[in-house]
């Protein structure tokens, strides 16, 4: 079985559980808020978008801190693991990114049909959905890379080196989150033009990928205590 297929089987129950919690939270929140006042922001884009980012951040940390050792001790090279983990995590990020406009579309349609959509609610259109996907995906990739880097520098280096390195490790997360985020209404924020934000985010994330590979390419597989 390939590394990415094995990772998918490991994370499938967790992913399904996480998605179930998100959907349930969305349903409860929208039902409660819309029963009181017309909804003027997209709960799905705003809150769920953040949850997905931090969930992927944690997954990336676990991939490096735990799964790397498990796979190498089962006869997988670091390079094979890195490629398989990249495929798995990028695929998961793309799937979750696709869920953003899909969920927003459903939320927008339901609120419109029930007349609980406020005038300033960010109504869903195909163009809005495309922009959301185009913003959330590079954002998720930045969080993934930073998560991997957080775990890698702590795993590889002693604390006096690893802890200071957490700061540059956070750069992909900070850049992608800052340039490609959403405001408090779930509307894309535009600190700079999207093409520039995308290019800068992709370049910084790619640099993070290179740094991550450099850090784990020959990292010793240390034994656990106890």
């Amino acid at each position: 079985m390939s590394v990415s297929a094995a990772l998918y089987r490991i994370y499938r129950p967790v992913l399904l559980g996480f998605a179930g919690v998100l959907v349930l939270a969305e349903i409860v929140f929208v039902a409660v808020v819309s029963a009181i006042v017309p909804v003027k922001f997209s709960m799905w884009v705003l809150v769920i978008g953040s949850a997905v980012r931090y969930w992927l951040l944690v997954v990336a940390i676990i991939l490096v801190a735990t799964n790397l050792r498990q796979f190498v001790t089962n006869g997988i090279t670091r390079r094979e693991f890195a490629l398989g983990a990249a495929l798995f995590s990028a695929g998961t990020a793309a799937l979750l990114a696709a869920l953003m406009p899909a969920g927003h579309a459903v939320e927008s349609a339901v609120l419109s049909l029930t007349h609980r959509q406020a005038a300033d609610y960010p109504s869903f259109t195909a163009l809005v959905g495309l922009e959301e996907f185009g913003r959330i995906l590079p954002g998720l990739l930045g969080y993934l890379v930073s998560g991997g880097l957080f775990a890698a520098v702590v795993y590889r280096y002693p604390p006096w080196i690893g802890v200071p390195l957490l700061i540059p490790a956070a750069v992909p997360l900070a850049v992608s989150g800052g340039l490609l985020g959403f405001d408090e209404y779930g509307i894309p924020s535009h600190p700079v033009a999207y093409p520039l934000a995308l290019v800068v985010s992709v370049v910084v994330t790619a640099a993070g990928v290179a740094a991550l590979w450099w850090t784990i390419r020959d990292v010793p597989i240390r034994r656990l205590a106890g």
Partner: protein
Amino acid sequence: MIELRGLTVRYGDTVAVDDVSLELPSGVVYGLLGRNGSGKTSLLSALASYRKPSAGSVRVDGAEAFENPAVMRATTFIRDTVDASDQDRIRRVLCLAAWLRPGWDSDYAAKLLDLFQLDPRKRVSALSRGQKSALGVVLGLAARAPLTILDEVYLGMDAVARTAFYRELLADYLAHPRTIVLSTHLIEEVADLFERVIIIDRGRVLLHEEADALRGRGVTVTGPVAAVDEFVAGRTVLGERSLGGVRAATVYGSVPPADVARGEAAGLTFGPVGLQELFVHLTSSSQHLEVAR
């Protein structure tokens, strides 16, 4: 064939493995012996590609081992701690091995779980020290890897479990011949399994030879106290035990047949020496390095 060429492993200023060169033919059970901190685990970590050598190389069947998929796939290295997440259940740990290990034998793994009375529903964190070691044995043996490395995997196991482990190791080796490297401090318990013995001391190989030849490096002389004392006079005595008027002395070095005949005429009996006694002798002081070589 496993070839180590000038293998060196450093941790900062500390040299754990110092310019080790070895040739290990395949299909043999090796005993890797050494005192605490002698560099055994570092050597095995480099052999299993868990750690990149600081210098030198490890080649398996002519191919560089580090990050080589074919070599990695054919190697299993079980340490004294199980390389699994504490939160995982045993079933999940075995599933991952089954997914990734080409030679994994699920039926044999199930049989070993029964043998060591491990409940597959239990989490790793809920296992005792001995049970974790037993899980390591299951992972090591059921992988059926052509190169199986077991580093002090018996820690915490009781005598019954250890005996079962040795029995299974031997039976599975006979049924599925492969290269096994067994690192242990319980030398006398497993000495009979070794075909070749490697002794490492302070990061350097002190000795690498056939177990039988190593046993021939010494003789145990038993008989009346006076006769034994007279016989061992002028020889290197590794140890002595007395009970009543009988004494057993372990002598280092070969004894000429004429001396044996003269000793037997004086009422002495001669037997093989234990590996542990030789190991203690060879590693107890650096002055014996030259004797070993």
